[in-house]
């Protein structure tokens, strides 16, 4: 008996010592922490947790809502992970998302009478330009003046949100909206394609394709190698003729562009217009997902789905169980803390 089980047991133990074990411990600790959090607040923790899982993946509709949340998380996570491959810590997804929505909406408003085949690309290009702009500014501050990118991206987030408030309360406000601060409804030609009568939209496809392409580029190409070298030792990169400065601008621009797409997708599909409170918190959630994934592009995809599930179920629980929306933030933070702690303590930490 023992002879047959021993190799299996040993294999199991080895698995536990490795990354798999770390992930299992993380998941278990997180579930425990979530249950404790519910219990402390006088909730039926087990049943509430069940409802949460059902609210995320229970039926077709729930899962579609999960995927709706997945798209912006995925895109903003990529906007964090790509600069991280160069050693930059960008927390600017939120602001880039808002700027994408702002510029994309600007394109829609400017070309509102154009046919869809022209309007749609204009809108997307506007969104990408806006997001990229909000990535390039901190990039320039970093390369030209040495301003730390974490701080500048954090501050620019607030500016981005305020700029959207400015246009929807001011110049772009729909005069027929009875004082509600929002732009006019997007014309049909400016609404991104959706799938199977749900709100799941093209943004998700953009995200998945971008993740796969970035993975291939960063791990296989000469350009990706340059990023790795610059991150490991910028001085050596410079000796080999790899420009750290140019790469900073490129990764910040591409990251911003992706987050910008997330912004216009929210405005176009989810809200049909630009308004305040476009997407509060997706940027931070994206940051979190990127770190959970160890800045690995392919791992970001499933983790974004999981995190989308958390947000979607928090939305439905707010409705049915009067669970405050902030509990989603608390659960996210608990997950982040647990992952940071376990990953640092585990002997064979999951590789970044």
């Amino acid at each position: 008996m023992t002879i047959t089980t021993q190799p299996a047991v040993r294999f199991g133990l080895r698995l536990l010592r490795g990354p798999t074990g770390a992930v299992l411990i993380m998941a278990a600790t997180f579930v425990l922490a979530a249950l404790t959090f519910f219990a402390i607040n006088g909730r039926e923790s087990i049943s509430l947790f069940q409802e949460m899982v059902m609210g995320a993946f229970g039926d077709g509709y729930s899962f579609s809502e999960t995927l709706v949340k997945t798209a912006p998380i995925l895109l903003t996570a990529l906007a964090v992970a790509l600069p991280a491959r160069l050693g930059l810590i960008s927390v600017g997804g939120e602001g880039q998302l808002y700027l994408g929505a702002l510029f994309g909406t600007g394109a829609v408003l400017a070309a509102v009478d154009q046919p869809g085949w022209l309007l749609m690309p204009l809108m997307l290009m506007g969104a990408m330009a806006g997001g990229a702009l909000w990535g390039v500014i901190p990039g320039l501050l970093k390369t030209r003046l040495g301003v730390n990118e974490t701080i500048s991206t954090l501050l620019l987030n607030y500016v981005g949100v305020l700029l959207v408030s400015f246009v929807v309360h001011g110049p772009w406000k729909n005069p027929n909206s009875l004082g509600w601060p929002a732009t006019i409804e997007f014309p049909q030609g400016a609404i991104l394609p959706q799938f199977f009568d749900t709100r799941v939209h093209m943004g998700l496809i953009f995200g998945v394709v971008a993740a796969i392409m970035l993975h291939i580029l960063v791990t296989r190409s000469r350009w990706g190698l340059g990023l790795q070298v610059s991150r490991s030792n910028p001085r050596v990169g410079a000796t080999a003729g790899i420009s750290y400065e140019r790469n900073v601008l490129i990764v910040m621009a591409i990251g911003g562009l992706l987050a910008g797409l997330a912004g216009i997708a929210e405005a176009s599909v989810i809200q049909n217009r630009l308004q305040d409170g476009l997407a509060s918190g997706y940027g931070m959630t994206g940051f979190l997902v990127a770190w959970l994934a160890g800045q690995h592009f392919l791992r970001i995809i499933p983790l974004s789905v999981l995190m989308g599930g958390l947000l979607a179920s928090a939305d439905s629980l707010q409705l049915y169980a009067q669970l405050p929306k902030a509990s989603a933030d608390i659960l996210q933070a608990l997950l982040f803390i647990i992952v940071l702690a376990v990953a640092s303590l585990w002997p064979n930490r999951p590789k970044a």
Partner: protein
Amino acid sequence: MEIQLYNITKRFGEVTANDGISLDIREGEVIALLGENGAGKSTLMKMLFGLYTPDEGSILVNGRETLIDSPQKAMSLGIGMVFQQFNLVPALSVLDNLLLAYPRPPFWTFRRLFGEGASQQNVLAYLEELAPGLDPNTLVRDLSVGQRQLLELVKVLNLNAKVLILDEPTSVLPPQEAERLWGLIRKMAEAGRSIVLITHKMQDVMACAHRVVVMRAGKMVQALTRENCSEASLVSLMMGDSSQRSDIDTHRDPDLAGKPPRISLRGLHANHGVQSIDNISLDIGPGEILGIAGVSGNGQHLLADALVGLVPLSRGEVIIDGVVLQSASRAPKTSDRVAYIPEQPAVNAVAGDLSLTVNVALSHFRQLRFFPAWGPEEEKTRDIIRRYQVRPDNPALGAGQLSGGNLQKLVVGRELEGPRDLIVAAYPTMGLDAGAAHDIYQALFTKAREGAAVLWISEDLDDLMSYAHRIAVLQGGRISGLFNPDQFDRLDIGRAMTGEHLPTADPAPAEPQARIAS
């Protein structure tokens, strides 16, 4: 205080760093511990200072066997050590640094507020003795290397050290400051302290040692009094039978020597951070090894970086074979025909997280395809590993996992692969043991014989004087002297290093002057 080390052995894995060494340290005596890099001198003294514990043997303090298991214990016994790497916080003042190391600093360090308290007088007493006139409020980062070393000495003296261990104290000093330190060492010995001087320099021994203990490859070769030894006998003891210096051929091909210079530096100016270089004009001929001497921090790194295109020039140009390579009027660029071998390869020459293959491929990064094919690159790496005897010999290994010596061999192999016009070597053997250093010099100078021009920066004047064809001295970012072999003289070069005189002689009488058609 008397200390006896008895039959000390220390092993690191396979390597026996110290093999049955016995040594007496007597009051009022200066002992020079002489040997090449890696001979085991520092290891022995680190055991006395409590950083390592011996595997075998014992340490007797005043005749009693004592276990010294931490630097704190050593200091409480009155043993102090000054390392090559200073333990000073550059952003803090001299006084703050002394207070940090003082065993009983006052809780309140009021100074500018209420004047200087009594306990601060204690902290500063030795400073006034060793470095009169040094303002204790100066920040350490503004001090010269020599002053920093004095500060380290003051720290050790503040701890009431009776036995002082100095690890290669003169290796960072220009000759004049080294002389001052020798005087100081003699004075401290006269005051009854014992001093152990770890060194590989003959001058240190001759200037102030009472006794010399020569070590080689972890063993004690011989102990002599100064009266009974000569420089020549010490060198042969230190090097053993195979005196390695002589077997590197640095002869310049006479055909090459007659040719016009390949590299011309014309009035180079550059600024970067706190360093600057100022109006540097030099010519280097084909096959010529031009040594750059000077106290480190006088613009050497900036000169190297500007040559290889890491830092922009603010004026002047670098010309290779009549073609302008770097110039103030355009952005600096790196070239595949320029080799760069900096010190501390782990920091300056490789990406530690990435494999040896990738690091070798960096030398021709721009020629890689967009999706690189790694097969040929790995072949190339294996070839370099084989020819330069890099260990371990696995090209997939992360560069950070190699020792400094092996890494430098890999870098040398990478940089000297293929045709090269200019080789810039900045302290290429710093921190390496004698064997690795020898291999690196050998490779470097062999490449020079093929016709490349070599600019070799070093702070080891002995090495420069033995191998370089000419020596230029950098001082305060300027060339303060240019010496031909018949003018090689320690004191003259030393004076140029401290900026005491500027030579009036024609800077390069033996070389035809630059006249490059552009």
